[in-house]
């Protein structure tokens, strides 16, 4: 895991390409929304650095900019100012097609609302990123099947989303996020629409992925879910309020550390 000093060093070196250990480096990211004259500053200069294999949780009150940050990190949105380096590439300077490629190859995104294609089967949904990567049909099917099996959905491949439970849908979404072997798995409140038991189940999936070396950033509201991560970043009013290790975080909040 990265240390505070390392992170400060890499986020402070404006304009310099970070070395390959860093999956994500943002420097002074700003995102503003113009709501008919009134400017809403969702992000007011966020410096964040994430090393390979890190498991980071992002917390913060509602409206603090967590989703805005995740969308920018996931290349679904573009910042108004600041640098964003992903795997040594300056993503914040990229055009449409290059961004599509980055979304396809480097990023796996898991949404609170699943965002599966309702009319497509689980298998077809998981195949989608491979379709846009230009993978031939047979290999696509093989890899999608494999990804679904990894999340214990081998038996539900030909079901459509409305024939699956919420937990199963989220596992399809996770399989889809992972099928292209992304450098980073992003999840914005992945358990927000699930009951606590199913949430635990999904958390175990993330847990397992993180333990096998997958870099993960996850947004959550709940401290005990955040406590699964090794590092917890708290946002407040569009800036980073704290960036702690799991033991520091647990100690500060006085909650039980989950079994890792």
């Amino acid at each position, binding site marked *: 895991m990265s240390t505070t000093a390392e992170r400060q060093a890499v986020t402070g070196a404006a304009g310099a390409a970070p070395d390959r250990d860093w999956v994500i480096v943002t420097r002074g990211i700003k995102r503003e929304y113009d709501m008919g004259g009134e400017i809403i500053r969702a992000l007011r200069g966020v410096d964040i650095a994430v090393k390979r294999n890190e498991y980071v949780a992002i917390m913060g009150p509602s409206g603090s900019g967590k989703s805005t940050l995740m*969308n920018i990190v*996931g290349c*679904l*949105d*573009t910042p108004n100012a600041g640098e964003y380096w992903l795997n040594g590439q300056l993503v914040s300077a990229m055009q*449409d*097609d290059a961004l*599509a*490629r980055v*979304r*396809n*190859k480097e990023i796996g*995104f898991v*949404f609170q609302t699943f*965002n*599966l*294609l309702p*009319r497509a089967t689980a298998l077809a949904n998981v195949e*989608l*990123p491979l*379709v*846009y*990567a*230009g993978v031939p049909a047979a290999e696509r099917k093989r890899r999608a099947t494999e990804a679904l099996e990894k999340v214990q959905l081998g038996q539900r491949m030909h079901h459509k989303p409305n024939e699956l439970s919420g937990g199963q849908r989220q596992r399809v979404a996770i399989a*889809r996020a992972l099928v*292209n072997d992304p450098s980073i798995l992003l999840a914005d409140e992945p358990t927000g629409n699930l009951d606590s038991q199913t949430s635990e189940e999904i958390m175990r999936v993330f847990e397992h992925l993180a333990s096998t070396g997958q870099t993960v950033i996850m947004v959550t509201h709940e401290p005990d879910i955040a406590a699964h991560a090794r590092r917890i970043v708290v946002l407040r009013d569009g800036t980073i309020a704290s960036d702690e290790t799991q033991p520091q975080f647990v100690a500060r909040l006085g909650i039980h550390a989950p079994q890792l």
Partner: protein
Amino acid sequence: MPFLEAVRLALQTIRVQKLKSFFTLTGVMIGVMFLIAVVSIVEGMADYVENDFAASIIGTNTFYVARYPNFQDVSDEEWRRLQRRPRLFAPAADVVRGALPTGTYRTAMVNESFLPATVPGLRPRSVQAVATEASYFEIKDYEITQGRAFNAQEVALGARVVVVGSEVATYYYAGLDPIGRELRIGGVPYTIIGVIAAQGSVFGFSLDRLAVAPVTAPLSRVIRPRGDLGQIVVQAPTREAILDGQEMVRGALRAFYGLGPGDEDDFSLSSSDAALSFFDELKGKLVLFGTALPAIGLVVGALVIMNIMLVAVAERTREIGIRKALGARRRDIIAQFLVEASTLSILGAMIGAGMGIGLAKLIAAVTPLPASVAPWSLVAALVVGAGVGITAGIYPASRAARLDPITALRQE
């Protein structure tokens, strides 16, 4: 994304969104159907005029010498001037005949009119009565199915013989041999000596209600009580020879009428070309009118398709957001929508083309209107139909493809 993938995706969407697909398909289909049907009928009429009509009614490579011009709009003043022209009489026909090289050009004096023909015990019927010379049968290229045509001697003698069209024969003598039987035309009895093979009809007007008698027979007097000639028909050996023939005839007739170099012609020479150009003009108008209507239909169809596509895009913005989030590029989204739109419209255009041909054939079968499906109209309809779909698909598709993934995903 490979092209085949876009096609597969489009077909899948078409299958899933049946109602939307149906409307798109139907819009193009109806436009193309009417386009083809109308163009086919207009073309059919044009064909008819050029081939059958010109040959049957006007005659192949012929021109007419008459007192007045044919097929022309004439002002009142001009009409009064035309009326001062001398009437045409038999000697003029001799002049015409003498002016042309024998063997290559054919001439015939013709008087014709619709007259009632009767047989005792049957209701009289109007027939097209023609008083002419024996050469008329060659000029018209009539095939005699029963009996024979009259000959030059019978014309010289003014024999009361008549050659009838097939419809006349079957009307008056159904199931009987008409040869040697009597037919009264204009109150004068004639003996039927031959029957002309069926010619069919032009625009619902039968060419077989025909009775041809010698020009010297009393029939001429019935048609033209003053004893003058209706017209002299001249057949040139080729289409190109029409003009030469007209010049020779013009020169001879001007001398015959004693016209000076500055005088206007005292007669009219009209060829089938004049009639054809009249019909060409008519056809131009028909094509314009007949194409404008379905074209409007197609434009309306295009707007409908565009609207459907826009609604489809709005409905599917989330889907577009998901696809873009997973790595679809702008062109992948455009390809998907474009293939979807053009598959539907090409399919619609093809079905519409089939139905258009069917409709044209149906109209040809149940109405006197002829129809002929022009290959160009098929190609045009398919191109226009597909073009409409693609154009209608491009705008909403490119609009959808420009969306930010997150903007698209937020849409409910």
